[in-house]
């Protein structure tokens, strides 16, 4: 990590003014207890969380029958999330999962967009730079592990220890693959989100290095689009995994 920006320093030399610089793998380290944490990720995530909570409180402070302004917007968001959850988990069992999947979607969405829309670069840190919280692997892995926990919890609550039957349900031969699946699910979830957001920011940063004005704009718009889609994909997949855990393996469980 000490050599991380070697490659890109040669790029930076081309631009006369330090309009933009690319820093990959540099972090603002904080010491918390015995653990090191990435300060810049936590700061941006706090901003995102604060934004979400404040908007929610403002929207629900004075609930009216005919919604206006913020309440309208948040009701739209809620209906969107509810539809998403209903489509994935099904009419019967989707209700208790709306808060989890909805928060997942909103947090990732606001995080991704904050990386592109919020002028983080105006705030300079001693080391590292502020960016979307989701372009740190820790954040995405944390979210993916929460998703894993959620579907395990869903399966256990529905079926108790019978949940483990799904590992040997068609044949015990597939046991290793079934176990491996539990590892690949959070891995692919976290790497997909992390890679997409990081790729967006890298592409924009490289373009800004080459041509600082106007040219990066369409790419930034594309980045906004893919960020939104990635939030949707994460939430959809979380819903699909939870549904799978609730339904069991294949159609054999539905007969019960």
């Amino acid at each position, binding site marked *: *990590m000490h*050599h*991380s920006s070697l*490659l890109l320093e040669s790029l930076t030399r081309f631009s006369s003014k330090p309009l933009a610089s690319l820093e*990959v*793998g540099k972090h603002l380290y904080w010491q918390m207890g015995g653990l090191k944490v990435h300060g810049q990720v936590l700061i941006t995530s706090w901003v995102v969380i604060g934004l979400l909570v404040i908007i929610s409180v403002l929207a629900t402070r004075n609930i009216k029958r005919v919604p206006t302004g913020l309440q309208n917007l948040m009701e739209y968001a809620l209906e969107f999330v509810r539809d998403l959850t209903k489509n994935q988990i099904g009419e019967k069992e989707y209700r208790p999962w709306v808060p989890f999947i909805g928060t997942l979607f909103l947090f990732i969405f606001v995080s991704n967009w904050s990386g592109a829309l919020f002028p983080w670069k105006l705030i300079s840190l001693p080391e590292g730079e502020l960016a979307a919280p989701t372009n740190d692997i820790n954040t995405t892995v944390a979210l993916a592990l929460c998703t894993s926990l959620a579907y395990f919890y869903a399966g256990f609550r529905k079926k108790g220890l019978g949940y483990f039957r799904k590992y040997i349900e068609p044949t015990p031969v597939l046991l290793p693959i079934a176990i491996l699946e539990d590892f690949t699910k959070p891995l*692919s979830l976290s*790497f*997909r989100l*992390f*890679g*997409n957001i*990081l*790729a967006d920011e890298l592409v924009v940063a490289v373009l800004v290095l080459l041509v600082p004005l106007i040219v990066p704009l369409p790419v930034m718009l594309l980045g906004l689009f*893919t960020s939104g*889609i*990635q939030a*949707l*994909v994460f939430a*959809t997949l979380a819903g699909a995994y939870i549904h799978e855990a609730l339904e069991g393996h294949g159609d054999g469980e539905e007969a019960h």
Partner: protein
Amino acid sequence: MDPLVAAASVLAAALGIGISTIGPALAQGNAAGKAVEGIARQPEAEGKIRGTLLLCLAFMESLTIYGLVIALVLLFANPFA
């Protein structure tokens, strides 16, 4: 960093991202073509088809992103350096 390892890493990163683009590119083209066919056959289902298509494209895109992640590992967090 050992120059041999550096050269191999850069080459591997370039090849990795290049090769990992091929499959998803073909798949995305195929999916988009099929989606257009579907819309042409049933224009009233356009909204649904478009939503599904975008979701599928994102999944295929993530395959390339895995390649990109590997390339980034090789470039910025090389375990062999």
